[in-house]
């Protein structure tokens, strides 16, 4: 490990410490930049040459037809992609200038700063609502007194608009909640570790319209504190809930997905720069 990498690592670890110890008030999300990002499954190039900037404290939506690499791209932003056997990434992804793929960086630490919410709600079935919310802290055996943890759990559940519904049954299993509640529990769980960025992989696709709208409102609120990137199949959702929208497309089956354009959401849906984008958002294909 050379000096530069060590600096990156200590910078990453001190950032983690700061964010867990200092109170979250006044915290801001961080900027993610990717440069010439190529994402592979073994020798198959799934996403090609993505260079984009995710702006802090904005909701960035990624849209595009199925199989165009949106989710793959999203998972490469917090090093979840490499968990798949044979998956790898070329190019760079930086979080406020720090390359998260440089040799000295521990992927576990990256994921503490860049959290993720998944397509289907996945609360831990062995844990209560309380333990699910505090899971990121408990599983990492953070030393913390009961009051402090209670505070974080309440704050996270309030943040996810779930507190009023579950405050009397925090010791009940998280799996006993409805689908929409479970997804909000998963958001509370992800925010409880106080990441800088929250990635959401089609978080509403398993939910009904009411639960979906609850989560969209929630995103609008928590972007004060986090940078949010959301993958969605639902163009109305992108139009409603995001500040910026990126459109991914794929030439033919087997070709890699590419980022066509990324711009303000209003512009993408009213006056996109590229013909493909206009065709897609106006429903001509996809």
């Amino acid at each position, binding site marked *: 490990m050379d000096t530069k990498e060590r600096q990156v690592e200590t910078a990453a670890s001190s950032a983690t410490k700061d964010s867990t110890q200092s109170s979250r008030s006044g915290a801001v999300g961080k900027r993610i930049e990717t440069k010439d990002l190529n994402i592979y499954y073994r020798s198959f190039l799934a996403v090609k040459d993505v260079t984009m900037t995710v702006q802090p404290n904005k909701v960035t939506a990624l849209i595009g037809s199925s199989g165009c690499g949106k989710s793959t791209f999203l998972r490469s932003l917090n090093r979840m992609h490499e968990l798949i056997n044979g998956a790898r990434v070329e190019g760079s992804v930086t979080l406020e200038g720090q390359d998260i793929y440089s040799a000295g960086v521990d992927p576990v630490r990256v*994921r503490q700063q860049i959290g993720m919410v998944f397509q289907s709600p996945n609360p831990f079935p062995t844990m209560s609502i309380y333990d699910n919310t505090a899971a990121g802290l408990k*599983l990492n055996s953070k030393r913390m007194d009961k009051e402090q943890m209670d505070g974080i759990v309440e704050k996270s559940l309030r943040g996810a608009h779930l507190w009023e519904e579950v405050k009397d049954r925090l010791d009940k299993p998280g799996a006993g909640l409805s689908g929409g509640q479970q997804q909000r529990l998963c958001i509370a769980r992800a925010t409880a570790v106080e990441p800088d960025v929250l990635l959401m992989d089609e978080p509403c696709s398993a939910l009904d319209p009411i639960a979906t709208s609850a989560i969209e409102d929630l995103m609008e609120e928590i972007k004060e504190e986090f940078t949010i990137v959301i993958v969605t199949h639902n163009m109305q959702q992108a139009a409603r809930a995001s500040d910026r929208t990126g459109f991914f497309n794929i030439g033919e089956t087997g070709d890699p997905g590419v980022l066509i354009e990324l711009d303000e959401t209003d512009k993408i849906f009213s006056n996109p720069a590229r013909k493909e984008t206009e065709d897609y958002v106006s429903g001509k294909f996809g």
Partner: protein
Amino acid sequence: MTDGQTPTMAPEPAAAPTPPADPFGDKDGRIPAWGPWAVIFGTAAALTGVLVAIGFNLVLLLIGTTLFSIFGIYVWGRIVEGRRQAFDRAITLGIGSIFALAMVPLASLLYTVISKGLARMDSEFFTTSMRNVISDGGGILHAAVGTAIITGLATLASVPIGIMAAVYLHEYGKGKLKRALTFFVDVMTGIPSIVAGLFAFALFAILFGPGIRLGVMGSLALTVLMIPIVVRSTEEMLRVVPDGLREASFALGVSKWRTVAKVVLPTAMAGIVTGVMLAVARVIGETAPLLITTGTFSSVNLNPFEGRMANLPVFSYTQYKFPGVPPEPFIDRAWGAALVLILIVMVLFLAARLVSRRYGIELRK
């Protein structure tokens, strides 16, 4: 399709009160619930009559009843219900008969062991050993204690090894090493139990000289048999844990080891415990490896590291194989010990069912 059919089908119920010919060839009638039984017993009664006339034969009666009832229910169904239902009835009866056939040995075995073992279900049988017993009386205390110690030690050794091996194979392993280990676990599953016994026997003979017999040797032999069972069942349980839970944990910035220890294993725990209980039930009745490793002994021995140690399967075997004079008390003790073994296995199975039902977690696919 709808264009062609809607006009013809819609007015029909109004126009013609009698329903049209069923397009599926179904008929209105239904064979009542007692129908199949009536066919079976009717056929059996008729066949008995015929067989008594020409010379009774039980096997012939059973085979004949099965075949004629299948035929009978098919014909009845064909007349009353229609072709598909008739075929369904015939197949149902056929499969039911095969199931009954499979149950015959089990029922017969249970009946034999219970009827012969009941003779010694007295308090003396459970509270005394065979110390100074020459003919009648005596009990299985020494053998029961020995079985508990030997199997307990084997479980203590094989559960950690088995679970950790399964965690490696399913959560960590990849490439050639994983394939090799999986292969060897498969090979171990197929090891004849006597070979496991000979392995323990040979190992201790090398270390401590020939002719040695210890309780712990039996434990070693059983451990060799138990490890692959525990590995297999635990691996199966880990496979059922959804990847979504692992990903959720990783996405919280939890390391792989903590994810496995605190998310994956607790989620699979009920299944793993059930698997361990079934593995214990599987090895607790092993006779051959214990016969050559633990030897026989007529008093209670609590120390597995010194001296011979009695156990239930070997006790049952020796009592039956080498009875004294008169032989009856020995034979009774043999069946009694066999019944106790069956009861232990049954309790283990019930406990396993209970654990998986009570603590099992519904995992969404």
